[in-house]
């Protein structure tokens, strides 16, 4: 059996889930035995590859770039895993939603709160256009597995990945595996 082609992506989130992933410490070496990392914010890849076996998605869908990427991810991945509360629920990233839309949020961040030169950065490509409402990943594409937690504890990540490597579906039951927050 060849190695699983493994990817992780960082969308609208704080990267805390990836930090927690790194908390797997020495088990990361075991993981490296079983998977080949083909795309990740902790490695240098430019485009999301094809034929990925499992992709961990951290973060909610918050802008146009996320929207584009998530469809590619779904198309190219056998297993898409919503990784952490932002991906699963929208979480902190989605706390801007009740404000009512992208413009209001940009005003709050770049105009109203600034004393010097209040303006929204407008140069091309500087900031991907925000979508009006942040949504969890499964609101856009079908998702195969959900790992709640902000961030998910390393043990929980390991339990899921262990099962995936062994070709089983992880048992998402109980406080250890399911607690949000």
């Amino acid at each position, binding site marked *: 059996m060849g190695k699983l082609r493994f990817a992780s992506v960082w969308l609208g989130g704080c990267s805390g889930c990836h930090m927690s992933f790194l908390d797997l410490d020495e088990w990361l070496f075991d993981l490296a035995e079983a998977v080949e990392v083909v795309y990740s914010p902790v490695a240098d890849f430019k485009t999301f590859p094809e034929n990925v076996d499992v992709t961990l998605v951290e973060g909610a869908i918050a802008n146009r770039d996320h929207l584009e990427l998530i469809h590619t991810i779904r198309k190219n991945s056998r297993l898409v895993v919503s990784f952490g509360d932002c991906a699963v*629920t929208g979480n902190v990233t989605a706390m801007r939603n009740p404000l009512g839309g992208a413009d209001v949020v940009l005003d709050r961040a770049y105009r109203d709160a600034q004393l010097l030169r209040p303006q929204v950065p407008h140069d091309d490509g500087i900031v991907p256009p925000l979508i009006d409402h942040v949504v969890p990943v499964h609101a856009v594409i079908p*998702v195969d597995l959900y790992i709640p937690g902000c961030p998910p504890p390393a043990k929980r990540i390991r339990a899921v990945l262990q099962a995936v490597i062994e070709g089983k579906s992880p048992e998402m039951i109980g406080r250890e595996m*399911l607690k949000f927050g």
Partner: protein
Amino acid sequence: MPRTLTINGQEISARSDQTILEAAQDANIRIPTLCHLDGLTDVGACRMCLVEVTGSNKLLPACTTRVQEGMEVRTDTERLRAYRRQIIELLFAERNHVCAVCVANGHCELQNAAIAVGMDHVRYDYIFPRLSVDLSHERFGMDHNRCILCTRCVRACDQLEGAHTIDVMGRGAKSLIIRDMNVPWGESTTCTSCGKCVMACPTGALFKQGSTVAEMVHDAEKLAFLKAARERKVWNV
């Protein structure tokens, strides 16, 4: 007169004035609840404690249904589990329950219920209503984002404190917990600042000022104690 009934096949006896929920609690059988709180009257609103009873074509709330002789109760069927998960998902979608930044994280009955029903994600669209946080009271705060409208605070204020400062305004999804005529908490002229509502709250909707994430531990048992002490002179010291 005692009644004999079965819950999940287990034969138990109960007093005739007991509800299914009370009988189950005495027999150490757990039935999930949200709007129930020992020490307050039951309203049968959250529907988490619905059980199947042989011979009834309707599901019955365990908290308000009295036991009957020979009753066969099932509390944990696949169908009930599916309904309970849907109810919890509806609550999470209805308002802004962000566990990660909630004062009650780790001490929340809604969060616990989500774990119990096996909720790994919410299938419904999040509504993201715009709701306020009332920090006008010097000791307590109210975050409507976290409120599940269980009315435990309303009942605690009315039945245990006797102030009836708190009630519900509006209706349907627009219902809102209010103090007096929808005044900021700090301006309420009837509130005694006794804190019973805060004790009664199952989530992070009511909290002590100064609590930060995961620091707010409710003290709901105090209310049951208070009632027992007042009415039956029972001090479990």
